[in-house]
């Protein structure tokens, strides 16, 4: 029982890191790409120029750094927890992204989207009630 509590504790801690780094990284990436502008042509030269502009942006690099931290947190938690547990449990990040999109990027978030985000939270709560690792506790 105490082992389960300890495993849940470290799983939730790393999930919190994943959600924070992932959500902040996604929002910064969006902000950075909006500054770069839309990719209008698919010829290789235009695509290279587009990505070159992207990699000259400090915002994009900050987003990449946060997404690397997200990846490291994922690697750590996946060393013991099921992917089918970690993946849906990390969906709680959508609440964070919707809030940041609304408050920081000034995007319009309609009511149905908020209801959807709330249902995602319920689903995450249900998944969070299962054991993080079925291999040890089938």
């Amino acid at each position, binding site marked *: 029982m105490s082992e389960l509590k300890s495993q849940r504790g470290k799983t939730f801690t790393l999930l919190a890191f994943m959600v924070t780094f992932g959500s902040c990284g*996604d*929002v910064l*990436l*969006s902000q950075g*790409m*909006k500054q*770069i*502008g*839309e*990719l209008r042509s698919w010829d290789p030269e235009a695509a290279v120029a*587009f*990505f070159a502009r*992207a990699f000259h942006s400090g915002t994009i690099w900050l987003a990449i750094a946060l*997404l690397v931290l997200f*990846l*490291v947190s*994922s*690697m*750590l938690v*996946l*060393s*013991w927890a*099921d*992917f*089918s*547990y*970690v*993946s*849906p449990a990390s*969906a709680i990040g*959508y609440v964070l*992204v*919707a809030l940041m*999109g*609304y408050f920081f*990027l000034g*995007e319009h*978030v309609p009511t*149905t*989207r908020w*209801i*959807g*985000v*709330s*249902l*995602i*939270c*319920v*689903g*995450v*709560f*249900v*998944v*969070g*009630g*299962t054991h993080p690792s*079925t*291999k040890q506790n*089938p």
Partner: protein
Amino acid sequence: MTGRTALFISIVVVAGQLGDLSLSLAMKTVGEIKRFTPLNILRFLGRGLRVKWLWIGVGLMTVAFFSLLVLLSWANVSMVVPATAVSYAVGALGAQFLLGEQVNRERWIGVIIVCIGVALVCV
């Protein structure tokens, strides 16, 4: 949602989930990290870098990342990111059939509720 947006969301989801499943397989191969000291974490990551599944996963995630970059240049993050949440169902299926995880009824119910939430988010 335009056809171009739907296509890029599909690429982000499929490549991203196969990448995550490969990463999960790689980390299970390395084994559970017990102590979270900086040195231990670096050693753990170093062991991970020697597993081929990690590199396959990174390759697939790179495809998903660049597709997301292009997608976000015209679409709003509060639409794109929730839309890619369909990957939870794809990921759970992959975990069950490719990784052999025991996805019980409660976990599937949670995943389905997440998917309904996603459907509402994308309306």
